[in-house]
């Protein structure tokens, strides 16, 4: 046919090239013939079979969500579980008379039909024939009612899905986090996610989502004309997520939460030998089970509009003035830089004049003659005003940073805050203003521009306790496959060294010991029978918050109570930081007893048999 025209007209084209065109022509003909033959085979020879198959083609793909990995505490107590949940799934294309079916379903579920309709409209980009979950977590009676009336309910099925379950409710909720359906942005971020997938949204559920999520399976199901499953044609089973074994001690966590009671604040306990987190409390908290079953708009609104922000993890995100607990890091700087000797005395008359301002000591009648040891034990402000001034802001800042302040601790939690350790460079950057010497006095007692997070304070206490090694706080001990095989064992990670002489830390530890153990100490209420405890109290003034901020009112201007501790002093195995927000009392009165209760439980659990209920 047309190939006859392949005569070479142009001068510049060799014969050889044109001959190749003929080969191409042959190839084109061959391929088109082959494809037409294939079409003939499919559409004519096998056509009626295929037509029949397509008419009966009621094969649906259903995704089997994977069960998320379990979470255990260090002693094997189950903290996060899965349980079966019966969900009502409706496939609108299968309902026939949709309005009638929805009305009937609403009748059995005892809900207004309009509510169901609203939920059916919600998914924006649903592929046809994909089911919509209209009701989660049915009561057993409702399951029975729907199953027995299936004939009245074309397109409605009840499916069993694994649902996240937190057996202790709000216990350690900020550590554990919560789960929810992936939103549009999260779907775009990861092609493995599908609409309707459950993913970690906060806490360890979010940070360890890759380990916990597992791999969804799928089923190829044949359905009848009413959309009911006839049989499963093939199935790819889901692979459950990995198990996390935490370093957290559930009993210690429980006692810490009980000790905190209705107060707001944070508690964090670490093992100073390796950075393992033993307990992490942030109050107020929330119940992650609400998220697991699909949080209602009203509940979500309540959580996000609460002025005390229950979703915020105060341990890692709350930034507070540290008050006097800051003095222990300053004290290390004073000794290390030889600004003071352990013996050098300062006289405290109850305050000191600097420039035109009177800086008062918390003890207005004065502490009298103070050295470093007693300055720590009695938390004398004047001692730190005068010597902090001599150390100077930049050296002071450098030393407290060596204990981990001013930087995130690196704990694997979302949005960890860094706190603020001011110095002259910071002041210039932030306010474009020089540093005023008077400001150093406030900083030396942990006030002024200084802010820290509770986890930084616990890290500081642990670093002092273990002789100067700063570990990354971590809460996962190991990752196990669903069959129990260990996939990853977490090892302690050293982030840095305080790099001060052992004698300096000995002196600071000795002061902290007497804070609790001496009769004149401010932290006596953290004592535990049979154990030498070291600690430091702090009462941070909250001055800058205006009362006009509305709800909360006067309460928002009350002081924060702090207490840090480690024990036993001889060979510390636990370091704690506790903060009670707007406590209306000092660290010694409010925060120290909380830590005392925790330590008491901690040491009795390890040393002796389980004590009786109560403390």
């Amino acid at each position, binding site marked *: 046919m047309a190939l006859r025209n392949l005569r070479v007209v142009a001068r*510049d084209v060799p014969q050889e*090239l044109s001959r190749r065109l003929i080969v191409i022509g042959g190839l084109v003909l061959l391929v088109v013939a082959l494809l037409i033959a294939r079409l003939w085979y499919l559409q004519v020879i096998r056509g009626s079979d295929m037509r029949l198959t397509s008419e009966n083609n009621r094969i649906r793909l259903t995704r089997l969500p994977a069960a998320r990995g379990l979470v255990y505490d260090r002693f094997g107590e189950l903290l996060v579980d899965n349980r079966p949940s019966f969900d009502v799934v409706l496939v609108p294309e299968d309902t026939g008379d949709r309005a009638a079916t929805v009305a009937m379903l609403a009748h059995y579920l005892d809900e207004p039909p309009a509510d169901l309709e609203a939920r059916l409209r919600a998914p924006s980009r649903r592929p046809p024939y994909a089911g919509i979950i209209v009701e989660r977590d049915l009561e057993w009676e409702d399951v029975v009612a729907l199953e027995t009336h299936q004939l009245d309910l074309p397109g409605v099925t009840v499916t069993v899905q694994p649902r996240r379950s937190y057996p202790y409710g709000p216990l350690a909720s900020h550590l554990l986090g919560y789960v929810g359906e992936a939103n549009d942005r999260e779907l775009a971020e990861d092609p493995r996610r599908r609409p309707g997938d459950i993913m970690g949204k906060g806490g360890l559920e979010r940070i360890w989502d890759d380990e916990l999520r597992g791999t969804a399976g799928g089923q190829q199901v044949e359905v009848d004309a009413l959309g009911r499953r006839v049989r499963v044609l093939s199935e790819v089973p889901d692979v459950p997520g990995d198990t996390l074994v935490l370093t957290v001690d559930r009993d210690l966590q429980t006692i810490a939460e009980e000790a905190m009671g209705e107060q707001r604040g944070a508690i964090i306990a670490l093992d100073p030998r390796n950075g393992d987190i033993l307990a992490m409390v942030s109050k107020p908290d929330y119940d992650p089970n609400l998220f697991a079953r699909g949080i209602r708009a009203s509940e979500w609104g309540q959580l996000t509009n609460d002025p005390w922000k229950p979703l915020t993890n105060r341990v890692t995100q709350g930034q507070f003035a540290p008050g006097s607990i800051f003095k222990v890091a300053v004290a290390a700087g004073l000794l290390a830089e030889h600004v003071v000797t352990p013996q050098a005395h300062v006289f405290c008359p109850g305050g000191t004049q600097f420039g035109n301002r009177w800086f008062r000591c918390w003890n207005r009648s004065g502490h009298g003659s103070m050295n470093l040891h007693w300055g720590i034990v009695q938390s004398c402000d004047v001692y730190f005003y005068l010597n902090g001034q001599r150390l100077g802001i930049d050296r002071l800042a450098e030393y407290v940073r060596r204990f981990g302040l001013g930087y995130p601790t690196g704990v694997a939690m979302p949005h960890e805050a860094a706190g603020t350790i001011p110095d002259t460079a910071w002041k210039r950057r932030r306010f474009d203003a020089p540093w005023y010497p008077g400001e150093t006095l406030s900083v030396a007692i942990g006030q002024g521009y200084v802010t820290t997070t509770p986890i930084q304070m616990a890290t500081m206490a642990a670093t002092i306790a273990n002789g100067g090694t700063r570990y990354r706080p971590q809460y996962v001990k190991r990752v196990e496959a669903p069959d129990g095989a260990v996939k990853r064992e977490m090892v302690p990670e050293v982030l840095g060294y305080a790099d001060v002489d052992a004698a300096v830390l000995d002196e600071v530890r000795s002061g902290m010991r007497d804070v609790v153990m001496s009769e004149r100490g401010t932290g006596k209420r953290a004592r535990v029978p049979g154990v030498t405890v070291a600690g430091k109290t702090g009462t941070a003034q909250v001055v800058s918050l205006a009362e006009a901020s509305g709800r909360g009112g006067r309460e928002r201007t009350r002081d924060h109570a702090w207490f840090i501790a480690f024990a036993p002093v001889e060979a510390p195995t636990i370091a704690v930081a506790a903060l009670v927000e707007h406590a209306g009392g000092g660290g010694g009165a409010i925060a120290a007893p909380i830590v005392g209760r925790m330590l008491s439980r901690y040491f009795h659990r390890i040393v002796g048999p389980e004590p009786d209920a109560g403390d």
Partner: protein
Amino acid sequence: MPAIDRRLLTHFEWVLPLLVVAAAMTGILTIYSATYTPALVGPPALAMRQLAWLGAGIVAMLLATLFDYRRLDHRAYLVYGIFLAMVLAVPLVGSVGGGSRRWLRLGPVAIQPSEFMKLGMVIVLAHYFARSDRTHHDLRQAIPVFGLIALPAAFVLIQPDLGSAALLSVVSLSMMLVGGVRLRWFALLALPFLAVAPFLWGFLKEYQQQRILMFLDPTKDPLGAGYHIIQSTIAVGSGMVWGKGWLKGTQNHLDFLPEEHTDFIFSVFAEERGFAGSAALMLLYLAIMVRMLVIAGRARDRFGLLVVVGVLATVFWQVLVNIGMTTGLLPVVGITLPFMSYGGSSLLCLLIGTGLVMNVSMRRFLF
């Protein structure tokens, strides 16, 4: 040379554009059906967008006939360089869609540089093989060509766009064969490739590996890629002789294919138009390709001939791979059906390519 020479009008190529626009219109009607749902108000948006792209493409096709194509011969490396730069820009500033980064956003439209790269490749290879008088080349002359091919192909592969990378390669290899690189050199080159293939396997994304494995045994995982092949085959077969009729297809509304308006447009067409329509469509493609061959045979110089062969090879391989895939003969790789599948850049580039072929045809008597 004046843009409109009287002889140009006399020799204007009518047949090819008519055939090509017929294929594109068929495509738009099929996209309409594939994206149609009863609940929709007005015509489906994608079909309307494709119609707009067709309009723009026809203008571009006519523009591509206005200048003497030999000017491209002199600027072949420039054209290649510009399109290569666009491909290289994708990982830096490209936008993501469907799990890979393939698009560049230019104002309101997103273009896919890998499509333009095919045109650049055709022009640069035509230039390379047209410059010498030899009709046979040995390996030494072919080696720089492999560099020209491998660079864009590698960058397209990592987008990841396995289909486009493979297409770029086979079109280039086809041109090399026609350009005179001997078949036996390819056999020789195939050896090291086979040796590194297991390593390349590791570079493929998991879903790409899945697709290849699925082709080897479609029944292995009926939930994944194999399911698509099975369902597409059922769709094609169920069209029988006369088809179910326009908008009457059922398979495509079962959501068995995520890309029914792009890669799987043919299965929608075949279901609705039956063997009669499918065979007619195949004959339409045959006519397009034969017409291009005729134009190639009449080309006045080697560069023109090779450009036409390059455009022809693009159409040929895409038709073969796409229809082979939708009828279960070949693995699922993301290659569109030329002129029919939804996709602005693809249609635009094919129409520009068609314009170049017309350009060669119209200037066959001018020296």
